[in-house]
């Protein structure tokens, strides 16, 4: 059975071009870039190129790029650095819908005595900018707001938010893991001080990330050790993955147009057809600016895990914000923050596309998903056929 992969906000396939550039560094070119001899020195040169590729995608300079092990490490590094360098400031401003890499860290920091303000979002998933402005204080060490939400694809006005932080002398970090490669980013023209990227969301392998730190920003390393990354992140370089990430950044710049045209039209058709064919369904975050590749649809009266496992029978890969798939007993914190009723949140399915998806795959999902929902609804105690007034089920 062919796999139809529509879970690209979870992870992506490694681009064949990326793998190709990496392979020599897993075989012949195993030198340590810190070594004195040319066998290591040439690897250092390749890493330098990779740093240039990454900085080009972001509109940054190469020396502002720190290679890390993942998006979570980048997020942790940014926030901890701001606290460590921010004198006695102990207030963090973030949002209710952050990725766990930021959200859970902030919960932990509360236990250690920090104060955290989580700015709410409205029903469309958009950030409450008034509340955001009010939350900034003279004690605020850092603002950390994601550029685009991983579950709904909703895009936040981070550049505006960064300006507001800068005008008050507050550091601004953004988790841009989902945004990079889909939204044009020019950090030279922005007030963003720190930005996180994850390789595996960008067709590079897992285990590699980037933290951008604006030149002149006070910085304190998270991983302490050798002089690598100019003393900002200890540990021997993950050379093959760094090389792969550089290539992935170059590809992402080339494919940004395709993401916003062809991929977007695939997503739009998928979304439109599913809504047409499946009554009592709605798009979460549909009224807000969104990433071109993501749709998050709730199907009322059915539960997400059941939908996913039936899709799995056809090789279709997707995610859900239901409790059963989150590994906890409550549905997604993002959908709850948006005020999506539990009854809708439990039946949510996220489909996230990439440049590797095709028209045929979209056809297949449009063909397979409606009967799955219909079958599950047929034995749901809350579903009344003919789509008439449905049991409230609260």
């Amino acid at each position, binding site marked *: 059975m062919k796999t139809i992969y529509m879970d690209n906000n979870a992870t992506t396939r490694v681009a064949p071009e990326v793998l190709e550039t990496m392979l020599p560094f897993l075989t012949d070119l195993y030198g340590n870039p810190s070594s004195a001899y040319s066998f290591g020195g040439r690897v250092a040169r390749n890493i330098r190129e990779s740093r240039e590729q990454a900085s080009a995608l972001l509109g940054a300079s190469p020396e502002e790029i720190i290679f890390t092990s993942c998006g979570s490490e980048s997020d942790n590094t940014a926030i901890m650095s701001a606290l460590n360098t921010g004198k006695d400031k102990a207030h963090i401003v973030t949002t209710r819908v952050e990725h766990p890499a930021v959200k859970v860290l902030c919960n932990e920091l509360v236990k250690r005595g920090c104060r955290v303000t989580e700015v709410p979002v409205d029903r469309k998933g958009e950030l409450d900018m008034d509340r955001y402005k009010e939350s900034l204080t003279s004690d605020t060490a850092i603002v950390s707001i994601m550029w685009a939400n991983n579950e709904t694809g909703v895009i936040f006005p981070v550049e505006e938010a960064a300006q507001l932080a800068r005008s008050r002398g507050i550091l601004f970090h953004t988790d841009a893991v989902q945004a990079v490669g889909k939204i044009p980013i020019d950090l030279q023209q922005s007030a963003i001080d720190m930005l996180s990227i994850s390789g595996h969301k960008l067709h590079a392998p897992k285990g590699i990330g980037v933290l951008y730190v604006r030149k002149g920003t006070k910085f304190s390393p998270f991983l302490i050790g050798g002089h690598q990354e100019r003393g900002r992140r200890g540990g021997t370089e993950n050379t093959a993955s760094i090389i792969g990430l550089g290539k992935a950044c170059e590809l992402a710049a080339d494919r940004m147009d395709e993401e916003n045209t062809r991929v977007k039209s695939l997503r739009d058709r998928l979304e439109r057809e599913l809504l047409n064919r499946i009554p009592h369904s709605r798009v979460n975050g549909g009224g807000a600016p969104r990433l071109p590749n993501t749709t998050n649809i709730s199907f009322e*009266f*059915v*539960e*997400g*895990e*059941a939908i996913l*496992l*039936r899709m799995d*029978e056809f090789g279709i890969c997707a995610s859900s914000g*239901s*409790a*059963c*798939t989150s*590994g*906890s*007993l*409550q*549905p997604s914190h993002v959908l709850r923050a948006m005020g999506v*009723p*539990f*009854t809708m949140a*439990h039946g949510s399915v996220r489909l996230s596309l990439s440049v590797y998806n095709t028209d045929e795959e979209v056809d297949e999902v449009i063909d397979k998903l409606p009967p799955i929902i219909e079958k599950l609804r*047929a*034995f*749901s*105690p*809350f579903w009344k056929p003919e789509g008439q007034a449905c049991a409230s*089920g*609260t």
Partner: protein
Amino acid sequence: MWEYTDKVKEHFLNPRNAGEVKDANAVGEVGSMACGDALKLTLKVGDNGKIEDAKFQTFGCASAIASASALTEMLKGKSLQEAERITNQDIADYLGGLPKEKMHCSVLGRQALESALSNYRGEAPKEQEGKIVCECFGVTDREIEKAIRENNLTSVEEVTNYTKAGGGCESCHDAIRELIARVRQEEAPAKRPKLTNIQKIRMIEETLEREIRPSLQQDGGDIELVDVIGNRVLVASRGACAVCKASELTLTHFVEAKLREMVWPELVVEEVPK
């Protein structure tokens, strides 16, 4: 991804007995869409007291659907007495086991069965027994105690896996710990020699006469012992108690607490209609 057995997957993909029994005479409904799973069980009990047909409707994940499907298969052809003895563990065993985090799906099945059987016996649907401990999922102390007892649970995490209680905001974890401690304590003296049924009934009667009826009578109410089945004490309220909305509270809290203290720690008081 959850590790489901082949049997769970098979029952999920090809559920048996999905739907509603048209001329059902026993209906049980538990759970809610807000909580993430709900189950409606419809049974047709024949004149001979055997379950002739069983169907289910489920809103829930794969293991909730599989548990409901399994339960209906287990019920068909069983007498009511046999059906009453099916536990949540039996449902899980039938499916070759469930992931521990998913045991609450089997508990949902057992609860729907209890609800259907009491519906068949013509008992009014029990509104809610005990007091809510977990606000997030609306789980009562009675339900938690029952799960602790029947499945020998020892930690908050296990209680969450079986009842969902404590799986939300976690503010009830201390209360759950106390319930676990209470049940454990009750079980220690339970090792004392068992009472015979006659002894038990006699002690219940004596306690009612001496400790309970006088206080109820002071308020113009009264209570009558109807039957004792195992640890279930069936009583009927009389006088002011019979028309008083608070009487169920009185029964569960006052009468039961007294009987548990004086007679047997596992007694459950149930009110039967006059």
